């Protein structure tokens, strides 16, 4: 480097100057860094604290247990059973997709299942279980348990799933639960529902969903960066779904279902004194359990295409003409409006004509019934008597009298899917047919034909009011306190008595249409009806319905209550394509009442059997 002239003092001073500047820079840089930490730790503290908690605390939903359903005697109808699902944690079994083929030996897996699993596996975190199959059957659980050592990372996990007892008999009352779909989920309160929850789809399960579902709890899990759970605590306990106690008596329900034999139709038995539905069946039923796990396409198509329409809930959705079952109500209307008295007689020649009109309205009996009074007219179901009465009442008075019996209205029964019937009126026809009312339509309304449509539950409600002589006890399926209301019009005891006697005569008088069914154990009152399936030509009127092919035959109706003096049970039966109310529907009603009496009045049988 050669000789240089060093100036030690100057160099030292120069260095000190540079050192001061450096120290200044150090302090400025440190202050800037500290301001960064101040920003993160003081100003943004809340933000980062919640981020840290989000990192650490994972909230899991605790699915609430769905409410149980019992019949009136405490028989369990819907419960939650432990089911098993096969799961795999991909972290522990990285090549599990290859193992699925091997697994098929023991667990049924379709190609679709396997493709779904593969799709899920792509997005699923490695530590989170993937469900291979739900609802394993016992054989699958056992087979897997034996071979578990071949499948490390796979495990069987229990979960609760709905289970219905007496599924077929109870099917149309209970309905069923199934996995919630995207549309339903979007409408639900998402704090209460998870995307894979079960939800009531039909029947009581749907109507009482709010109560049955319960409110989920929350499990807080502390996890580390790899998602491993460190500890758990129940932050919010779930509140489980409410138990439903039905008014249904399973014994009577079963008896009602069996009473149909091979027939299809609907039956409802109500206690008229409190509106409690003791039995409500729609035949055929179906196995509601198969819907929970998701019914196979094949099975679902079979149910949909069955000519017996097992999925159709006839009790609440079936619309039928009331036919002659409307006659007791017409009689009451006539008595109330003083158009007839219990003693009024008329002569039935077999047909009725409106003045200046060609058309003849026939009796069901060729040549007529001769001289009949009110009791005879009900006992023999004399059409002419009621044609005449209907015309005298006029459609407006018929409508306003029948309306309080809830015809043409929803009963508000606590079950999802009820359909409205039709109580014909000028207004209804104008609104729905855009036509004026013709007098001839009043005539056939008198025997429950024409536009008249009832559903079995609606008829049961009306019958409840009729049997209890004017008390309106709302019919219901889940036990609750009800408020009894009364018909707005004052009907005298004598009038009620006259109609009850007429209905009693249907069974107990020598000329009663259902005299063959009279019981020596108890007295019951009833009325048959025929619901026309197709309008018939004049020649066909007297043709025996039984001769037609079954699907063209008329529906058979029967309404009844017993015992006549102190009714405890009121029954409505619709036997589809049963042709004759007395022959097809009445025996079913009788069997239901017998079953009821055997449960509640066994002494009547003991006394005579002994």
């Amino acid at each position, binding site marked *: *480097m050669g000789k*240089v*002239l*060093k*100036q*030690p003092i*100057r*160099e*030292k001073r*120069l*260095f*000190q*100057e*540079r*050192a001061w500047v*450096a*120290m200044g820079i*150090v*302090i400025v*840089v*440190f202050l800037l*860094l*500290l301001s*960064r*930490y*101040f920003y*993160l*730790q*003081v100003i*943004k*503290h809340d*933000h*980062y*604290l919640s*981020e*840290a*908690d989000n*990192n*650490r605390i994972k909230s899991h939903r605790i699915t609430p247990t769905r409410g149980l359903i019992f019949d009136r005697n405490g028989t369990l109808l819907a419960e939650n059973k432990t089911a098993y699902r096969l799961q795999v944690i991909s972290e522990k079994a990285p090549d599990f997709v290859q193992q699925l083929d091997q697994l098929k030996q023991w667990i049924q897996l379709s190609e679709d299942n396997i493709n779904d699993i593969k799709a899920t596996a792509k997005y699923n975190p490695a530590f989170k279980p993937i469900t291979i199959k739900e609802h394993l059957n016992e054989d699958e659980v056992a087979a897997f348990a034996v071979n578990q050592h071949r499948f490390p990372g796979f495990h069987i996990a229990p979960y609760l799933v709905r289970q219905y007892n007496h599924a077929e008999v109870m099917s149309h009352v209970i309905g069923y639960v199934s996995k919630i779909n995207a549309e339903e989920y979007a409408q639900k309160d998402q704090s209460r529902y998870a995307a894979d929850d079960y939800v009531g789809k039909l029947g009581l399960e749907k109507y009482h969903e709010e109560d049955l579902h319960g409110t989920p709890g929350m499990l807080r899990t*502390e*996890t*580390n*960066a*790899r998602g491993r759970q*460190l500890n758990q605590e129940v932050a919010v306990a779930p509140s489980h779904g409410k138990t439903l106690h039905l008014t249904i008596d399973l014994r009577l329900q079963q008896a009602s279902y069996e009473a149909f034999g091979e027939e299809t139709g609907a039956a409802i038995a109500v206690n008229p004194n409190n509106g409690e539905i003791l039995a409500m069946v729609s035949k055929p039923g179906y196995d509601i359990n198969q819907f929970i796990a998701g019914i196979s396409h094949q099975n679902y198509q079979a149910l949909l295409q069955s000519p017996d329409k097992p999925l159709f809930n006839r009790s609440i959705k079936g619309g039928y003409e009331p036919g002659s079952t409307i006659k007791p109500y017409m009689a009451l209307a006539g008595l109330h409006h003083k158009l007839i008295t219990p003693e009024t007689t008329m002569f039935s020649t077999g047909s009725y004509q409106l003045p200046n009109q060609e058309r003849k309205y026939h009796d069901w009996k060729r040549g007529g019934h001769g001289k009949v009074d009110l009791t005879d007219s009900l006992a023999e179901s004399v059409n002419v008597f009621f044609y005449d009465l209907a015309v005298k009442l006029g459609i407006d008075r018929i409508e306003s009298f029948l309306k309080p019996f809830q015809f043409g209205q929803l009963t508000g029964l606590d079950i999802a899917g009820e359909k409205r019937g039709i109580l014909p009126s000028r207004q209804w026809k104008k609104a729905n047919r855009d036509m004026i009312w013709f007098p001839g339509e009043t005539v056939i309304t008198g025997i429950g034909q024409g536009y008249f449509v009832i559903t079995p539950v609606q008829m049961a409600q009306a019958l409840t009011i009729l049997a209890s002589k004017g008390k309106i006890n709302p019919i219901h399926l889940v036990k609750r306190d009800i408020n009894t209301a009364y018909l707005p019009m004052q009907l005298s005891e004598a009038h009620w008595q006259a109609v009850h006697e007429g209905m009693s005569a249907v069974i107990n008088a020598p000329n009663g249409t259902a005299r063959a069914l009279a019981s020596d154990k108890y007295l019951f009152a009833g009325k048959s009806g025929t619901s026309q399936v197709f309008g018939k030509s004049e020649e066909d009127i007297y043709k025996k319905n039984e001769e037609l092919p079954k699907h063209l035959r008329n529906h058979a109706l029967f309404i009844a209550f017993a015992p006549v003096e102190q009714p405890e049970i009121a029954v409505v039966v619709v036997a589809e394509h049963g042709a004759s109310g007395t022959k097809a529907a009445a025996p079913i009603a009788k069997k239901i009442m017998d079953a009821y009496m055997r449960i509640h009045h066994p002494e009547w049988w003991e006394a005579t059997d002994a």
Partner: protein
Amino acid sequence: MRKRGINDWIDPWLLLLLLTLLAYGLVVLYSAGGPVLVERQAIRILMGLVAMLVIAQIRPERFEQFTPLIFVGSVVLLFGVLFFGITVKGAKRWLDLGISIQPSELCKFTVPMMVAWIMRHAALPPDWKHVFGSLLVIGLCTGLIYQQPDLGTSILIALSGLFVIYLAGISWKLIIGGGILAVLASPVVWHFMHEYQKQRVLMFLNPESDPLNRGWNIIQSKIAIGSGGVNGKGWQQGSQTQLDFLPEHSTDFILSVLSEEFGFIGVLALFILYTLIIMRCLFIAAQAKNTYNRLICGALTLIFFVYITINAGMISGVFPVVGVPLPLVSYGGTSVLTLLASFGIMMSVHTHKKLIQQ
């Protein structure tokens, strides 16, 4: 002869400050890594302290004397890495000479020493020949380390050399001119950067763009720091640390642990300690008896400062992620040994400042 006092053996102020910092670091390390790491680190610290005290007894003239030799030695080793280095994770940084050594670590001393040695022979402020010679020394080592590749270390080594030139009194005009040149050259540098280095810079600019991979570290570190608040969550109470959300929490991210558990107050205390150490070291440098001693002390101090700044800036999301430990706090033997050795040199300068003058 005057009686030899404690200041003739060590610098008690500097020693006290360093011991305080080391103890603070071990407390944080205990929370981050547990007793096993603390035990291992404590042994290295003891070794480092012994080395520091031994070096403190060596006359600074010896360092000066051997500077060209050890510089040449370190360059030879760097070439050795180039041809015979061990490749670990795609980078060739280590040389196996019976024991594995990382010659780039050695350069942290030898480069500033060599530049100081050049300046010692110049009349200060230095003329262009000395500056050019210094830049050659710096450029050679920086280039060799950059190609390993090791961007972080090469930048630090370049800086350590440049600090000596700055402290030697190069004119402000040249410093500013050089700064402008560096900014203009940055696109060229970008062009020659490795893909992973570019990724780091890009990710630094927008860490949330890739939250689960490369950005994860910075995001989790910021959460740890921010969630600590003013007072911190308490020792061993940091969820980010204890539940492993925070990466590398014993080494590069130990300041995040400190921030989470001791809060802003803990960070402030750390920076006060660091500031006091830097002040003391610059004071020692200013008091040194000759230019070489001044420059070497000043440069080592500023490199210490740069380490702190890069680490604290990196973990709080101000700088890109560069693998630089927090001086004297992060877990790791090499770092603590070399740092304590460099403080040993400063103590040597301190204890020998008057002897020659007598």
